[in-house]
């Protein structure tokens, strides 16, 4: 695909996404799309750390939570506007990301997994018990809704455009990083830590950078959820939430850009389409994850080339059929 075509496709997709909710989609579905968008940001973030650099992290929900609390408390207690709180809370999360990145220099694999689980548990307990700052187990209530002048983003549709903007930003940044020396360095670390180091990659720096980027995206998503739901509780940012984001990443296909998007959107909308499964949905979902990992370890993304070939064949066959008719 040339540069022109890529630009055209991008403009087309963005226009479609911008116009789509205006075509009579109910507010409930728009809410789902907003949540899907927030998960896209979270999953793209986790992708830096787990997908690209291969460093396991069970802490994405913690950065989500840290960002959400930072943003909520900055607006509520310090009177900061949402538009300043959004980047600030991402930076707060980033600082914690750097902190969590440090152990990854010393330990790997299962050790790192348990360290990140420990980190997220400690974060959750602090948010839950530090009453003076976080309102403890009551949760944070009445978080202000973002406004632009006199215009309030108080409907699902209005918030949709805010989420869409941040999602596009996240996708853009991800694409640019993947196709750069930074993306190559992260990828090299995932494939072989030692070989990357010997080929001149400062693996310590890039591991921490990967955690920092993950956390930054997590913080952005957190700020978005805080001002969307206007209520926060520490227990929503638990281990299972991190596990959910990890599943989104791997079901979609880690290491790519399209994978995390497919995973996050798919797994947010899937429960709606599979409503008839009722209580059994989650159990089936668990089995699905296990099966998918053994049958298709690179995720649903690996179907795309096959799908493309299938469509192409369909197309050429039709052409042939048309030609033979003449």
């Amino acid at each position: 695909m040339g540069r022109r075509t890529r630009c055209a496709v991008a403009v087309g997709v963005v226009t479609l996404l911008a116009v789509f909710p205006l075509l009579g989609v109910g507010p409930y579905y728009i809410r789902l799309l907003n949540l899907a968008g927030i998960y896209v940001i979270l999953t793209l973030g986790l992708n830096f750390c787990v997908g690209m650099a291969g460093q396991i992290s069970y802490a994405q929900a913690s950065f989500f939570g840290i960002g959400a609390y930072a943003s909520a408390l900055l607006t509520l207690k310090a009177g900061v506007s949402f538009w300043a709180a959004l980047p600030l809370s991402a930076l707060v999360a980033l600082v914690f990301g750097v902190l969590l990145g440090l152990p990854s220099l010393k330990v790997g694999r299962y050790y790192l997994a348990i360290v990140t689980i420990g980190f997220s548990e400690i974060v959750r307990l602090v948010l839950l018990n530090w009453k003076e700052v976080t309102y403890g187990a009551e949760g944070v209530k009445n978080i202000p809704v973002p406004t632009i002048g006199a215009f309030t983003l108080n409907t699902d549709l209005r918030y949709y455009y805010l989420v869409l903007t941040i999602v596009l930003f996240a996708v853009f940044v991800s694409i640019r990083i993947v196709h750069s020396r930074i993306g190559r360095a992260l990828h090299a670390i995932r494939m072989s830590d030692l070989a990357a180091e010997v080929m001149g990659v400062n693996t310590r720096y890039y591991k921490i950078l990967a955690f920092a980027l993950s956390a930054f995206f997590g913080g952005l998503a957190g700020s978005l959820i805080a001002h969307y739901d206007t209520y926060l509780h520490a227990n929503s940012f638990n281990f299972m939430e991190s596990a959910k984001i990890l599943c989104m990443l791997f079901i979609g296909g880690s290491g790519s850009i399209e994978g995390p998007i497919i995973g996050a959107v798919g797994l947010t909308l899937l429960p709606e389409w599979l409503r008839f499964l009722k209580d059994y949905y989650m159990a089936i979902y668990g089995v699905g994850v296990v099966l998918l990992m053994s049958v298709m370890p690179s995720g649903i993304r690996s179907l795309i080339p096959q799908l493309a070939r299938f469509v192409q064949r369909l197309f050429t066959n039709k052409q042939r059929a048309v030609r033979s008719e003449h």
Partner: protein
Amino acid sequence: MVRRGMWASACGPDVLRDAGTCGDVLCGSDVVHWAKRGVCMVVQLIVNGLAMGFIYALAALGVVMLYNALGIVNFAQGEFATLGAFIAYSLIAEMGVPYPLGFVVTVLIVAAVGVLFERIVYRPLRHKHFLTVIVSTIGVMIFFREFERIVWKPIPRFFPDIFEGRLITIGNVVIVPQHVFIIGVALVLMVSLYLFLNKTSVGAKMRATAQDQETASLMGVDVEKMIVLTFVISACLGAIAGVLFAPIFFITIDMGGTVGLTAFCASIIGGFGSIPGAICGALLLGLVEVFAAAYVSSVYKPAVAFMLMIAFLMFRPRGIFGEKVSVKV
């Protein structure tokens, strides 16, 4: 009620159920009693901590045996404990099966689940990337929890106390029989496991498999069978931990998850891969948790294991017993 609250807040919610009866011992009014009470409390906390420690130790043994044999850490290990607790609850409390029989049947059922786990989850993932294995175990964890939610509903369950609320009183020290029972059963199990691994031919084969699968298979060991057996033992240890644990805690869907993660922390503290290390680490954690909850703060109790583990990883990464790992280029 005041006394009850005091005791409860001192030991954390998990010993809430012992509260009413222990209270009497604790209500000294004069100075002598206060001093005695301090000593009594320490003794009681030690017993309590050791009981918790042995539960973690059983689960940690399962973690370490699997790791040594296959080089994988099963993050879903704790789910065997939850499943064991729920099955035992149904058999013993709901269907009225006698305790010993219910215990054995529970362990057998979970052992069968262990075999299925090996077949369905582990076998297709052999030689796959470590991250793939981790995500797959998340799937297992979700499945177990949802299965339990469907079958047993998300209501915390009380497991009947087999000692019917009786207490052992030695002087001023009051001990919960279940704690002694846990320590006893765990010790017997550990000794039998030790004898099995070191004194029987099957045990020798299992150890050979853990050391080097290729060589073991060249020596005529049926490696596949040994791997299945390792899963079975590891599942059984989890189930036993769960059943023993059930009467001290409410049975909830995520109770095993906590036990499993704490067990993993314990094995790191002990020195990953070392069996005596895992046991020592687990006992240490059990004691530290109970004492921290009593004297420091009970709200951060769930974080104690993680903080201790992170401290060990930073200052003594090889743990209490572990050897330094060197990377071969």
